[in-house]
């Protein structure tokens, strides 16, 4: 079973040289730590920056330079700044190669819910609805099961949706899964030490799995 850093590490392996990538808040943010050295990747922050660099050194924080998580960050040589309309313009026109974001639930149709829990204070969808509706390539980083052991990979989402039929790939603490065109999850890889049977039990949506599913390579 993977921890948050393990999920981030596995997702990092999906990144290709030359990608423009948008990382959501939470586990997706950690992915930046596992991008292989020498690979040329540009991180987009939807508040208006291409080429997001690491956190500033202590004392070098610039209040005018933050990411979409409102954290102080830095630019890199070759960075560019733009307004919010252009930022979502490049997202909608699919100039961003890969979007990585978290989810509370994903359905076997590729629907995603990640912004609202009825009865709880709703903070808003931020840029998530734009990202899921527009991105050509989305990877969801999420917990496969909640603390009660209930699956969050469902036949149908129970929470209010963020987007419909948009998710194609999911990485959880248990597995890597694709969402099939006709519906249903396909088990691609299992986390170290996790059995196919356990993944089956932990997935309430339709799951297609070969008898022999390879274990993730995290290196």
């Amino acid at each position, binding site marked *: 079973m993977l921890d948050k850093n393990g999920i981030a590490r596995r997702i990092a392996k999906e990144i290709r040289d030359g990608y423009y990538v948008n990382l959501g808040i939470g586990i997706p943010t950690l992915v930046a730590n596992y991008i292989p050295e020498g690979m040329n990747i540009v991180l987009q922050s*939807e*508040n208006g920056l291409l080429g997001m660099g690491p*956190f500033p*050194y*202590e004392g070098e924080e610039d*209040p*005018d330079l933050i990411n979409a998580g409102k954290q102080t960050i830095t630019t890199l040589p070759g960075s560019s*700044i733009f*307004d*919010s309309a252009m930022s979502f313009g490049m997202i909608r026109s699919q100039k961003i190669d890969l979007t990585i974001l978290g989810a509370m639930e994903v359905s076997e149709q590729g629907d995603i819910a990640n912004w609202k829990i009825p009865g709880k204070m709703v903070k808003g969808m931020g840029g998530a609805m734009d990202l899921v509706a527009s991105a050509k390539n989305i990877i969801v980083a999420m917990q496969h099961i909640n603390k009660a052991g209930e699956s969050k990979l469902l036949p149908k989402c129970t929470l209010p949706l963020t987007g419909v039929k948009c998710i194609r790939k999911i990485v959880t603490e248990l597995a890597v899964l694709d969402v099939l065109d006709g519906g249903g999850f396909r088990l691609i890889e299992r986390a170290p030490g996790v059995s196919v049977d356990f993944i089956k039990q932990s997935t309430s949506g339709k799951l297609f799995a070969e008898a022999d599913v390879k274990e993730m390579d995290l290196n």
Partner: protein
Amino acid sequence: MINKQVSDADEAIRDIKDGNTLMLGGFGLCGIPENCIAALVRKGTSQLTCISNNAGVDDFGIGLLLKSRQVKKMISSYVGENAEFERQLLSGELEVELIPQGTLATRCMAAGYGMPAIYTPAGVGTEVAEGKETRNFNGKDYLMEYAFEADFALVKAWKGDTAGNLIFRSTSRNFNPVMAMAGKITIAEVEELVQPGELDPDHIHTPGVYVHRIFQGKEYEKRIEQRTVRSKSETNYVG
């Protein structure tokens, strides 16, 4: 050139009235019109509808307007980090309309570009789509969203000249240029106000035609919401 300079924030917002709709630039606390917000608190204008990506924090940004009960409705994409906001929302004192961040930006831009409506896929199939027209283009569904109307847009720039030209600094640009284009009356506060000719015409982000009033703000606090740093030995992006 046409001189748009006014003396200060109080003069700039003099005719904002109870019940007006305002756009306020900024992302979180980054690039917010601090001086205009302070002047609005002083003036006490109430029943405001505020279009702004966020709602500030308890004691800063739009949070100051919330604390003094001047806001009737917020139109935002994300409103966390604000206990007073939550209290007013749950008690029914405050109306909130949540819309996707890109839709918010593009509806402002649409107003500035004279386009009455735009199409976006954001929110298709979700509760955001309720009551809205959906239209299919090239096999993909889009929502029709209308341009935003605002009586006033309050924006914050780094530099400006008295002709109203604005230059923004780093990610404090965010929603400011698109809101500047969208206000019926646009008020810009700047950290440094210069004379026409001191800004390079090629570097101007918002041409003066969009700005009706401009003044040099003072005592910018520029509060940081999430101070994240690394030590000199760290190579990681995030701790």
